[in-house]
């Protein structure tokens, strides 16, 4: 209860401005940030998402648009039942209109189901599963930042074009890892490359040396890391130790965030190739946003793609609500969001497809060498821009029931 009060105090000032204006028809909007604030993904989600949402509201100036916006936040602890429970309660009792963040695939799918049942809006930024806009898509859910298919397309396709045509996979042995390997393999083969081997690693694993030796022995030009989080960090760290990149093999991370690379340091991660839709140091606008963001974060950390996604989706959602002038019908709001093109300082211009997939460009990055890096957050060199219409899964291949064949 106390936490909810703290959360809602934030925008009192904005609301106050509106009161003085004496606007008659004001729409109340309540946005819930439901992320991981304590577990494995709290660095890409957590407090940063709340900060990003507040910055978005600040920039949107709701009072001028006849809106009064309130933000609440909670921790789903990466437990689907906890996430679904909070979402239900928010919708049923606390008057929340839209939930965003939703890192962790299992939780995201659960929130998406509740949102559909209650006809509200869910904009997922953090989860990787492409099912959100595939077989489990709903008219109330938008998937904003990335998905595993896009990452596979980005890294897999771009690497083969750059000459990395033989691959060996280290695959985390569960659905997520296997899907990532399957999708990436398809892209590699389509682009004329070849997968010469793979090894399934139990999840989680702390010691990858044995698997790395098998990868090294295979002679593949690229070692694809179809894993996430601590598994990825451990495998990159140990690859450095065994001189994998010095031996001429490239490491390709299929799900790596800037916070992971920051934790590894450029000394260990140098040469790693990865795909992300956002990097704080892309252009003047992203740098300006990141400076404001860092000032409010413990340890002055830079925003991740997920944080940027929260900023961007809150802006777009508020734009749509300004036009619909009501938050009552979630599906109608989402339809409005799909009908107006997206445009914000962080992702540039984009669109939202019928299946709920937000389309924007992605970038292929390479981690800098320590000598090139000018600070602890100076991490990437941009290798390539991958256009949005090429990187995401084509609309007709996702089996989303909303897309009429």
């Amino acid at each position, binding site marked *: *209860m*106390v*936490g*909810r009060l*703290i*959360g809602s105090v934030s925008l009192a000032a904005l609301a106050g401005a509106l009161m003085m204006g004496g606007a008659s028809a004001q729409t109340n909007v309540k946005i819930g940030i439901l992320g991981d*604030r*304590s577990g494995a993904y*709290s660095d890409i989600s*957590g*407090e940063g998402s709340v900060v990003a949402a507040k910055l978005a509201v600040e920039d949107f100036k709701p009072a001028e648009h006849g809106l009064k916006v309130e933000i609440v*936040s*909670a*921790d*789903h*602890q*990466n*437990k*689907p*039942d*906890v996430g*679904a*429970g*909070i979402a*239900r*309660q928010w919708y*049923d*009792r606390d008057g929340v209109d839209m939930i965003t963040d939703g890192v*962790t*695939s*299992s939780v995201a*799918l*659960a929130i998406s*189901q509740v949102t559909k049942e209650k006809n509200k809006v869910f904009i997922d930024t953090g989860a990787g*599963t492409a*099912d959100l806009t595939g077989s*489990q898509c709903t008219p109330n859910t938008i998937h904003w930042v990335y998905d595993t298919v896009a990452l596979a397309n980005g890294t897999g396709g771009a690497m083969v074009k750059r000459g990395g045509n033989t691959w060996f996979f280290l695959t985390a*042995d*569960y*659905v*997520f890892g296997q899907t990532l390997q399957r999708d990436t393999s398809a892209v590699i083969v389509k682009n004329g490359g070849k997968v010469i081997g793979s090894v399934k690693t*139990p*999840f989680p694993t702390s010691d990858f040396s044995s698997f790395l030796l098998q990868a090294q022995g295979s002679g593949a030009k690229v070692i694809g890391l179809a894993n996430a989080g601590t598994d990825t960090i451990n495998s990159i760290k140990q690859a450095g130790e065994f001189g994998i990149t010095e031996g001429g093999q490239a490491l390709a991370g299929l799900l790596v965030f800037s916070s992971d690379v920051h934790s590894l340091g450029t000394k260990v991660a140098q040469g790693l190739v990865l795909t992300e839709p956002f990097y704080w140091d892309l252009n003047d606008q992203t740098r300006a946003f990141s400076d404001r963001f860092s000032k409010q974060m413990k340890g002055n950390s830079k925003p991740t793609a997920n944080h940027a996604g929260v900023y961007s989706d809150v802006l777009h959602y508020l734009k749509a609500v300004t036009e619909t002038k009501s938050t009552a019908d979630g599906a109608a709001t989402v339809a409005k969001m799909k009908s107006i093109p997206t445009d914000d300082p962080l992702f540039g211009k984009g669109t939202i497809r019928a299946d709920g997939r937000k389309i924007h460009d992605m970038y292929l990055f390479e981690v800098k060498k320590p000598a090139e890096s000018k600070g602890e957050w100076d991490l990437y060199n941009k290798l390539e821009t991958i256009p949005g219409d090429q990187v995401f899964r084509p609309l007709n291949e996702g089996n989303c029931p909303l897309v009429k064949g």
Partner: protein
Amino acid sequence: MADTAAIDVAPIAAALPTRRDDKALHRMIFVGIALLLIAAPMVLYPVYLMKVLCFALFALAFNLLLGYGGLLSFGHAAYFGMASYLCAYTAKSLGFTPELAILSGTATAALFGLVFGSLAIRRQGIYFSMITLALAQMAFFFSLQAKFTGGEDGIQAVPRGNLFGVFSLADDRAMYGLVCVVFMAGMLLIYRIIHSPFGQVLKAIRDNEPRAISLGYRANQYKLAVFVLSATLAGLAGSTKAIVFQLASLTDVHWSMSGEVVLMTLVGGMGTVFGPIVGALVIVTMETYLAQFGAWVTIIQGCVFVLCVLLFREGIVGLVAKLIRKPL
């Protein structure tokens, strides 16, 4: 050195035998609980109540093993979680009606309980705890890799379906009714078990195993029986939860879930009839209303553990029982 110390699990229950008027008191409490359950949804959020009830049943089942069998299992998430997976799977993919899905989940838990239990009871004390933990970890890895569990995504969008193919459970109030019935049935069954001759022998084994053996009781068979019963009821709780939340996920098989149920029992009072219910209420409420505090949730849970062990071993209900000098 601690070998000489008496096991003081359930000090209250051991010290005060149940008398006739105690039974009357218990009956009144049961009626009270039933009335509370009927009144509660008017004030409180039904989904939250259903969560409390599922966990309360889980904790009751766990307490049957710990409080009355003297066996600390650190792997009860395995039965709870595997049951919820099977229930979700049969309800979603095989189109079972909710009651059949719950039954199949519960039967799965019984099977797991039988296999794991017969291994674990080969050792006593903390070895027993470590073995149950390790076996539960195997169940976790299995759930992570098996095809039907959906890996880290879990099984989502499980239909609540129609009870007996007739009554729709889509409405929270109907679902709540079913959960109440399951919970009351489970609780009364456990109460019955505790006060049956079987329960008396269990307590004798808990308090002094060599003596019980010398009296001719086959201690291991009793232990296995209570283990399977406890696992089965934990499975009943897990299956019901899968239908309520319409999902089954890795959270339910993870070892932290095993820790949580220990915490609930400890807070409420192990070896008391009603303690686990209070414990589940406290812990679930904490989890729900502390959700905003993020990382502090685990720290607070840890502190509660430490405080309970050091200062508060009777738990809430145990303390009340001591004050009114009646077993609860």
